[in-house]
C-alpha cells in the first residue's frame, strides 16, 4: 500500500466527453444497427441475421486485425485480396489430398506466413515502399492463383471444410428450452470473467497507489459490456449456437488485443509508427518490427483464405477481390491514422462490423451493390473526417 486509493473526481458526462473519440465508433455501430432495425422492421436483429453478419464478415475482420498493424507502422498492404485467393486455393488443394482439416489449416497459415516473409523482406530490408511491394504482390499472387487453379474453381471433396465457416459449436442434446445450451453457458462464463477482470484490474491499481475512477463507473462498464455479450450470445443461442467462425474470430482478436497492449513487440509497433527515427534512436530495431508486422499480415491472409474457401465451399480464382479495400476501410473507420502510430485492434473490428452491418442491412432492403458502394464511401469519409476533426480540436496534431 503506497498511499491508498486515489479516486479521480469526474462526472459521468465528463468521462464520456473525455473518451468521446474512443467511444464514437461504438456509438456509430449502435446507431447504424438501430437505423437498419427501423428500416428493415427488425429483420437485421434476428438471431439468424446476426449470426450471418459474423459469418459473412469474418474473413474481412481477420484481415482488418492484421491491416491495422500495417497501418500503425505507417504502411499499407494492397496484396491481401490476392494472397487470400492464393492461400485459399492452396488450402483447397491440400484438403483435397485427404490430409484432414487441421494439417490443411496449419499448412495454409505457414504458406501465408512465407508469402508475408517474401513481401516483408522487400519492404523492411530492401526499403521498397510497402505500397509498391504489395501492389506487385497483388498482381503476382493473383497471377499465381490463376496459374494453380487453371482459372477454374476448385471444389472440395467433402463438406468437412465448410464447417469452419458455416458450422457451429454445439454439444449434442444440450439445450435450454429452444436455446443452445453451450452458447448460454459461454455467455455466463464471459460475463463472470468480465466482472473478475474489471475488479482485478481496479484492485491492482489501488494496490499500486494509482488514481482510479469511482466504483460506480466499473459497474457501468460491466453493465454495458454484459448487455452486449448477452445480446450477441442470445442471438447465437436462438439460432444454431456459436458459429465456429465466431470462435476463430474471438481467438484472433484476443491474441492481437493482447499483443498490441501488453507485449514489447506491440509497443515497438506503435513506437515505429509514431516516429520511426525516434524509435530507431531509442534502440528499437525498426526493420525487424516492420518485417514481423508484414509476416503477421501474411499469416492472417492465410487464415482468411481458409475461412473464405470454407464459406464459398470451393476455392475461386477470383476470390478475395477488393478485400484489401474493405480491410483498409475498416481500420480507418475504426480510428486508425493514415500517418501511422495510431489505431487499435478493437477499432478495426468495430470498423469492419460497421461496414458489414451496412452491407447486410442494405441487402436485406434489396438495395443493390451500386448504392452500397455510395453509402459505404460516405461513411468512410465522414468517419475519418470526424476523427481528424476531433483530433485537431483536442490538440493531437
Amino acid at each position, binding site marked *: 500500500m503506497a498511499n491508498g486509493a486515489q479516486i479521480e473526481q469526474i462526472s459521468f458526462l465528463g468521462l464520456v466527453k473525455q473518451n468521446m473519440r474512443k467511444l464514437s465508433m461504438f456509438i456509430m455501430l449502435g446507431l447504424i444497427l438501430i437505423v437498419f432495425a427501423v428500416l428493415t422492421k427488425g429483420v437485421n436483429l434476428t438471431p439468424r441475421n446476426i449470426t450471418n453478419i459474423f459469418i459473412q464478415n469474418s474473413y474481412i475482420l481477420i484481415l482488418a486485425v492484421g491491416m491495422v498493424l500495417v497501418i500503425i507502422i505507417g504502411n499499407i498492404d494492397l496484396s491481401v485480396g490476392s494472397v487470400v485467393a492464393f492461400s485459399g486455393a492452396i488450402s483447397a488443394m491440400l484438403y483435397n489430398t485427404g490430409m484432414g482439416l487441421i494439417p490443411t489449416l496449419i499448412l495454409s497459415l505457414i504458406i501465408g506466413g512465407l508469402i508475408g516473409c517474401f513481401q516483408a523482406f522487400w519492404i523492411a530490408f530492401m526499403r521498397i515502399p510497402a505500397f509498391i511491394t504489395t501492389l506487385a504482390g497483388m498482381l503476382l499472387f493473383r497471377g499465381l492463383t490463376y496459374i494453380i487453379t487453371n482459372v477454374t474453381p476448385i471444389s472440395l471433396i467433402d463438406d468437412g471444410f465448410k464447417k469452419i465457416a458455416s458450422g457451429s459449436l454445439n454439444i449434442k442434446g444440450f439445450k435450454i428450452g429452444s436455446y443452445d445450451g453451450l452458447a448460454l453457458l459461454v455467455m455466463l462464463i464471459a460475463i463472470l470473467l468480465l466482472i473478475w477482470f474489471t475488479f482485478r484490474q481496479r484492485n491492482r491499481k489501488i494496490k499500486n497507489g494509482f488514481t482510479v475512477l469511482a466504483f460506480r463507473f466499473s459497474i457501468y462498464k460491466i453493465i454495458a459490456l454484459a448487455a452486449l455479450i448477452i445480446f450477441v450470445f442470445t442471438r447465437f443461442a436462438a439460432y444454431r449456437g456459436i458459429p465456429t467462425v465466431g470462435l476463430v474470430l474471438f481467438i484472433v482478436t484476443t491474441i492481437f488485443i493482447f499483443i498490441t497492449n501488453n507485449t*514489447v513487440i506491440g*509497443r515497438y509497433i506503435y*513506437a515505429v509508427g*509514431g516516429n520511426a527515427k*525516434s524509435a*530507431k*534512436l531509442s*534502440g528499437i530495431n525498426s526493420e525487424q518490427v516492420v518485417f514481423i508486422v508484414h509476416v503477421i499480415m501474411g499469416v492472417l491472409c492465410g487464415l482468411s483464405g481458409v475461412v473464405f474457401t470454407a464459406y464459398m465451399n470451393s476455392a475461386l480464382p477470383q476470390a478475395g477481390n477488393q478485400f484489401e479495400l474493405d480491410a483498409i476501410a475498416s481500420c480507418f473507420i475504426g480510428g486508425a491514422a493514415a500517418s501511422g502510430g495510431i489505431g487499435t485492434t478493437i477499432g478495426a473490428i468495430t470498423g469492419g462490423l460497421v461496414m458489414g452491418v451496412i452491407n447486410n442491412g442494405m441487402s436485406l432492403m434489396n438495395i443493390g451493390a451500386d448504392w452500397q458502394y455510395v453509402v459505404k464511401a460516405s461513411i468512410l469519409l465522414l468517419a475519418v473526417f470526424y476523427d481528424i476533426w476531433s483530433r485537431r480540436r483536442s*490538440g493531437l496534431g
Partner: protein
Amino acid sequence: MSDQYILEVKNLTKDFPGVRALDNVDFKVRKGEIHCLVGENGAGKSTLMNVVSGVFPKGDYEGQVIFKGKETNYKSTRDSENDGLSIIHQELTLSPYLSIYENLFLGHMKTKFGIIDWEACLRDSYPLLKRVGLDEVPHTIVSKMSVGKQQLVEIARAISRDAQLIIFDEPTSSLNDDESQKLLDLLREFRNEGITCIMISHKLDEVLAVADSITILRDGLSVVSYDVTEKKVSRQQIIKDMVGRELKNLFPKKEPNIGDIVFEVKNWTVYHPDYHNMKIVDNASFHLKKGEIVGFCGPMGAGRTELMMSIFGQSYGYGASGEILLNGEKVSFRNPKDAIEKGVGYVSEDRKSLGLILIQDVKTNISNSSLPKLSKRGIINKDLIRRKAEEYKEALQIRTPSLEQLVLNLSGGNQQKVVLSRSLLADPDIFIVDEPTRGIDVGAKFEIYSILNNMVKEGKSVIVVSSELAEAISMSDRIYVMNEGKIKGVLDRDEATQEGIMHMALVD
C-alpha cells in the same frame, strides 16, 4: 544621404514564442559594398536576414525595413525577389533532379503565350553561367554536381532575377578552400559591378579578407558596426564583441571526481550520407574519463552532432571508419540498439523529430528504450512502467498533469526532461547529450545541469555538445573544440574562455 544606403533596418524586434530573437536591431548596408554579418550561433543573424527577405512577412515583426529608399511590404520571398533582393540559403534550394537551366528559371520561366520557351531559357542560361564562372553545360542535372557548383547555380539564379542585393547565409560552410576562394572572388566581382552583398559567416579570415563593413550581433542585439574601409579591425576585437557578455551564476556547483579513461574514439572519419566523397568528420580522436563531463564546442556545421550520431550506432553518414574503445576494449555499435545495450546513451539535439514520439504519452515515451528490462518473456509489466515513469517524473521534476499526457502538449523544457528520462532509464554509463538546453527557459536549464552533475557524481561519464559557450565552459571538465569536421584542440576547465574557444575554432 539616404540613397547611400540600399538597405536600412530600424528598431527591428522579432519575437518567437518564449524568446526574443531580435531586440531593437539597427542595421545599415551601403550601396555596392560587401557587408559581413557575424555573431555566435543563435545571435539572430539568420532571423534578421529572414525578416529582410520576407520569409517573415510584414506584420510578423516590429520596426522598419527600408530597401532602396522605400519601406518594404513583403508577404513572401517571392515579393522580395521581384524587388531585386535575393537570399542564398545555407541549405540549397535547387530542385535536385532538374537540370541547371531548368533550375535557373524555376518560378520565372521564359514563356510565349503561356507556354514555356525552352529555347530562350537555354540560350539565356549561357551568359549567366559564364558570369558566375560555372563551366558546365546547362543540361547537367544539378544533383550530379558538387555543392560548390550547385551554389553557383543558385547565385546565377539570383542574378537572372536582376538582384541588386544578394544575401549569402554561410556560403562557404560546405565548400573546400579552393571553392571558397573562388566564391569570395565572385563577391568582389559583384561589388565592382555595383551589386551589394551581405555575407553571414563564421570564418573570420574570410570576413576580414572580403568585407567593407562588419556588423556584429549578439543575443539579438546589434552590438557594433565597423567600416573596414576606413579603419582595420582585429580578429580579437571581433571575437570579443561576439562573446562579450558577462557570465552570470547560472550553473550548479560540482565537485569533480574523475577516474580513468572509460571511452575513447580514435581516428573517426565520416562522409556525407548523400555526397560520399565529402568528409563531414575528419579523423577525430577524443577520450572520456569516468566521472567526467566533456564539452564539445564549435560553430554550426562543425560536425559535432554528426560525430556523435555516427558513433551512436551509425545513425548518421556514410562509410564511418575509426576505432571505439569502451573500457579499453575495442567495440563496434551496429545500430543504436547495440549501443544502448553496451551502455551508451544519446539524446538528440532535435528532440521533436529524433528524440520523442510526440503522439504518445509521457510514460510510454519514458519506457521506449527500456522495454526489454520492463518485461518478462516479451510481455510488458505495465505497473512497473508506470512506477518507473513516476520515479523519473519526480526525480527530474517533469511538470505534466499526468503520465498519460501526450508529450506534444508539454513545454520544451519538460519534453527535454522526458527524453532525458528515457535515456537515463536505459542506464547508460556513457551519456551523450546534444544541445540539452536548446530552446528551454533558464530555470529548466539549471535543472538539467543538475541532472548531468548527479550522473557524474554516480560515476557515469557525460559528453555535452553545446553551442552555448558559457554553458560548455561552466559545465565541462574539458572542452574539445571542433570546426570543419576536425577536432581543433582541447582545453582544460581552467584555461577555457569564450575567446579562447572561438579563437581555436576560427583561427588556428
